[in-house]
């Protein structure tokens, strides 16, 4: 009891730190200060995202077409995986509250178990997030970027269940790969002080040849129609756009190019979900520290599990932020 600083000898004294403003302890109050300021940071990011989106409202990527993958399953399942991630995070929030509740009853074994489950939930979430990033970076169909920085995607009309729908076609499926025009530059066979990054798998000319040879393939631009679909160009228009404006073939997304649409969409995705993922990661680390303190009986000796409550506040906050990220990135 004497080794911990749970009591300061100031209890009951109005001045000198003995008074708890708003009946919240010092630690809890500071956690709330942090949470409010962090909430403002996140809302700054999300507001900036909203700004860019309103700026490019006519050509913003459709989230349902971007995030369609589920691990171990083929096919297009928009929203399912991210809904699962949301559920995991809410679930780990629940085990966290249960840990706090068990702490109020000074039930050490229950706190231990619930903390453990919370950590597992957090790890599953971060793992899913990493998988989501990986899928996004790898890309799916590929596209052609124009000189003006716009994205031209490919697809064809097919009849599914009697309804004519526009199905995306991967660049690799129709492109006629010509003989490589030149070998990759390497420092050992050229100028040793010059390096070259990996070149795209196909050139625009190869895509153009493939497009000409496949009469059913059409180009789709970024521009949204009245009904909220992307504009599909006519056959002549398609060939003309690729021939006149095509600059490079892009596959997947990074900070510079994005096969799904505006590069800034990818930038915001990486930045906001990355910042959130970093919060989850640090939450897991703090949870692990508190978990070991629970096992070692630190809070048992203190007769107070308030530390679990404080880390719990942080953990719920991370959940709270995800609820908003989920809405603004995947739903709206």
């Amino acid at each position, binding site marked *: 009891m004497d080794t911990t600083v749970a009591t300061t000898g100031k209890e009951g004294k109005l001045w000198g730190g003995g008074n708890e403003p708003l009946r919240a302890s010092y630690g809890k109050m500071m956690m709330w200060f942090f949470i409010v300021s962090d909430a403002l940071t996140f809302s700054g990011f999300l507001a900036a995202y909203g700004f860019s989106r309103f700026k490019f409202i006519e050509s913003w990527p459709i989230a349902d077409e971007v995030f369609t993958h589920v691990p171990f399953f083929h096919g297009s399942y928009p929203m399912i995986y991210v*809904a699962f991630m949301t559920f995991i995070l809410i679930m780990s929030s*629940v085990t966290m509250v249960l840990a706090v509740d068990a702490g109020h009853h000074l039930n050490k074994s229950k706190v231990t178990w619930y903390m453990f489950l919370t950590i597992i939930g957090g790890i599953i979430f971060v793992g899913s997030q990493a998988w989501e990033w990986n899928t996004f970076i790898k890309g799916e169909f590929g596209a052609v970027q124009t000189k003006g920085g716009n994205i031209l995607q490919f697809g064809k009309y097919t009849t599914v269940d009697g309804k004519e729908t526009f199905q995306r076609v991967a660049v690799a499926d129709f492109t006629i790969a010509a003989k490589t025009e030149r070998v990759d530059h390497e420092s050992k066979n050229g100028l040793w002080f010059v390096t070259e990054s990996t070149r795209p798998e196909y050139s625009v000319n190869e895509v153009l040849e493939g497009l000409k040879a496949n009469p059913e393939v059409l180009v789709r631009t970024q521009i949204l129609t009245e009904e909220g679909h992307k504009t599909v160009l006519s056959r002549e228009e398609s060939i003309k756009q690729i021939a006149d404006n095509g600059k490079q073939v892009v596959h997947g997304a990074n900070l510079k190019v994005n096969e799904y649409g505006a590069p800034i969409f990818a930038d915001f995705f990486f930045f906001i979900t990355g910042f959130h993922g970093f919060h989850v990661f640090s939450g897991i680390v703090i949870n692990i520290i508190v978990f070991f303190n629970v096992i070692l009986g630190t809070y048992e000796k203190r007769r107070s599990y308030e530390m679990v409550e404080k880390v719990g506040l942080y953990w719920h906050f991370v959940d709270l932020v995800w609820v908003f990220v989920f809405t603004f990135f995947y739903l709206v």
Partner: protein
Amino acid sequence: MAHEHNLAIFQGLLKFKSNTQKIWGVLIFLSIITAVEVVLGIYKPEILMIQVLGMKGLNWIFIILTIVKAYYIAWDFMHLRDEKPALRRVIVWTGVFLISYLMFILLQEGGYIESVFRNGFVTNSF
């Protein structure tokens, strides 16, 4: 530390017997809301696609449901319900005021820039 819990949610419509029960009750409620969001997001009912105050009706539904979820996470998981009303107000209204201010300014500006692009003041042809 607040050991006594306020166990009623929905303005007292639903009262739980213990804190643990309340937690599970709130989880069920949050899961239902998420499920509704996902279903609406996948099917996108045509009737909700009308424009309401500059945005699709469906998007307003999503935003309202998100705020409802945020309310229950803050009130029951972060146990703001059991804190002093003054602490609750300090936390909530500071955020609400600053965030709505920031949102309004940035979205307004984004909409303006979009109109400049669209009206051809700056060309954005391929």
